[in-house]
């Protein structure tokens, strides 16, 4: 219901600022009642969210407490909290948790950066040049069909246990997610707009700058959300496969010690980090795509 009320509230307030004091009573009434309805709906959303969390975590705690499921295999929320505290106060076998986190974050961020830059460039090149796309399309399909996690083993054999093979794996995962979206985005460019700027005398570079890239940006930014998830996966998996530092290493060590609680604790840490990054990407999305009609971004807010 709230989504139905919000747009009306927006129109009402905009109308009021323009017409000024023509109908002050009904206008301010409408505004304040709309604001109340909005606050109410926000409160209810948060109540619902809290209920879901209590239900899931509480249920888990209860079932493991009652031994309906075995906490030895499945962990237990209270013990996960304990291992989180241990991780942050006592550190890990390989040094402080911040060191480990910093290594993983670096790998994920560099992988994300290089992967998305390469993906955007390749996507725009192949998307705007039919010859190149015809030549490369079978190879892209082949590369895409390789289970890319396997590449992690190859990278580690080739480049050792350092940070570089992790960046590479994260980058490869990110590349394909961004590449296909950038490619599609370029293909969906409004041809009328391209014709229009060409007639006005635009060079191919200017067409790319003023039409192709901004138009593909909608697609590219949408892909960054999933791409960031892939960057984390790439970094963690490569660390599990072989590393000297990082969250993935803690996960694989805990697995060896039959300690699901620490694995879950690592998941919590990465989730917090990913949520933060996701928030930054959303900010970027809002500033780059501020020209979009509000209705669409509201539909995409989830």
């Amino acid at each position: 219901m709230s989504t139905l009320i919000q747009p009306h509230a927006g129109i009402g307030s905009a109308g009021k600022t323009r017409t000024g004091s023509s109908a002050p009573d009904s206008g301010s009434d409408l505004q304040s009642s709309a604001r109340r309805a909005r606050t109410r709906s926000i409160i209810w959303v948060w109540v619902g969210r809290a209920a879901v969390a209590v239900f899931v975590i509480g249920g888990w705690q209860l079932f493991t407490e009652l031994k309906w499921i075995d906490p030895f295999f499945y962990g237990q929320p209270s013990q996960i909290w304990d291992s989180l505290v241990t991780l942050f106060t006592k550190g890990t076998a390989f040094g402080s948790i911040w060191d480990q986190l910093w290594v993983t974050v670096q790998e994920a961020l560099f992988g994300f950066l290089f992967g998305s830059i390469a993906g955007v460039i390749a996507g725009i090149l192949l998307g705007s040049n039919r010859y190149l796309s015809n030549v490369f399309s079978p190879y892209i399909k082949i590369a895409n069909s390789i289970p890319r996690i396997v590449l992690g083993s190859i990278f580690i054999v080739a480049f050792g246990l350092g940070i570089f093979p992790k960046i590479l794996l994260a980058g490869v995962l990110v590349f394909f997610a961004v590449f296909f979206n950038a490619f599609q985005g370029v293909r969906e460019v409004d041809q009328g707009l391209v014709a229009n700027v060409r007639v006005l005398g635009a060079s191919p570079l200017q067409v790319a700058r003023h039409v192709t890239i901004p138009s593909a940006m909608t697609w590219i930014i949408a892909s960054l959300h999933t791409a960031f998830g892939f960057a984390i996966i790439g970094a963690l998996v490569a660390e599990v496969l072989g590393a000297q530092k990082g969250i993935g290493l803690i996960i694989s060590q805990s697995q060896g010690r039959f300690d699901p609680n620490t694995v879950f604790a690592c998941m919590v840490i990465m989730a917090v980090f990913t949520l933060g990054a996701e928030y930054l990407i959303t900010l970027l999305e809002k500033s780059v795509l501020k020209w979009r009609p509000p209705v669409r971004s509201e539909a995409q807010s989830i």
Partner: protein
Amino acid sequence: MGDNTPKRIPVPPGVTDEGARIEIVDLTKRFLTPKGVPFTAIRDVSLTVEPGQFCAIVGPTGCGKSTTLAQVSGLDKPSSGSVQVGGHIVDGITNGVSYMFQSDSLFPWKSVLQNVMIGPVLLGTPKKRAETLARDWLRRVGLTGFEDRYPHQLSGGMRKRCAMAAALINNPRILLMDEPFGALDVQTKAIMQTELLGLWEELRPSVLFITHDLDEAVALSDRVVIMTSGPGTVKDIFDIDLPRPRGDVQTLRHEQRFIELQTKIWESLRDEVTRAYERTAGVAA
């Protein structure tokens, strides 16, 4: 055309700017359909638009009107025949041309001001100067105060004004219009037509104006070309001798001479429209 700022001086009526003459000679354009069958869109179209003349092309759907326009702009190459602009054969994008489509062709991610600025910016005009020019043009089309809006925040008529300012800001020698007002409601359309005439009389570019609307063609132009369909050829050319400036398009419609001309041209067009309709109806049945 090495110079960076669009500064063709508007040509007063009666003086000819030879660079703005469009000569289409025996123009033929064939396409391959997706199935690989050749299809002739237009055949042996010959047509001259004098400098500063407003020429409308009317014809049934699918008679190759837009194809003809694409050849003039240089976006597309003729299969045979030639297009000359200002005595030079068109090869590649023609200089000093602006296009207006039925869709607004505005950048959804640029503000109104940036949309209008794009013409001079593409020619390398310094940003400050381009902005001053764009503000001036927004004033001329009545969009002052809307500089920072995005196209989706404007009404259909306002978007059209914005597109018109963007098309005219470079002071083109030739203005190609492909059903520019086709999607507007009747009242807005009449207002836009009057405004277009006003701006055209100031700048006097040569205009090729495609439309389905015979009233629109007669009210705006000096010459109406009737095209037949399948493949497109020129059937008839009518000169419109209504005096200029024509003023308000709405009142023009009730004048005796307008009705005479409209009736005469409709006689010629009707057969074509009926034929085209029968053919498509036959395909559908």
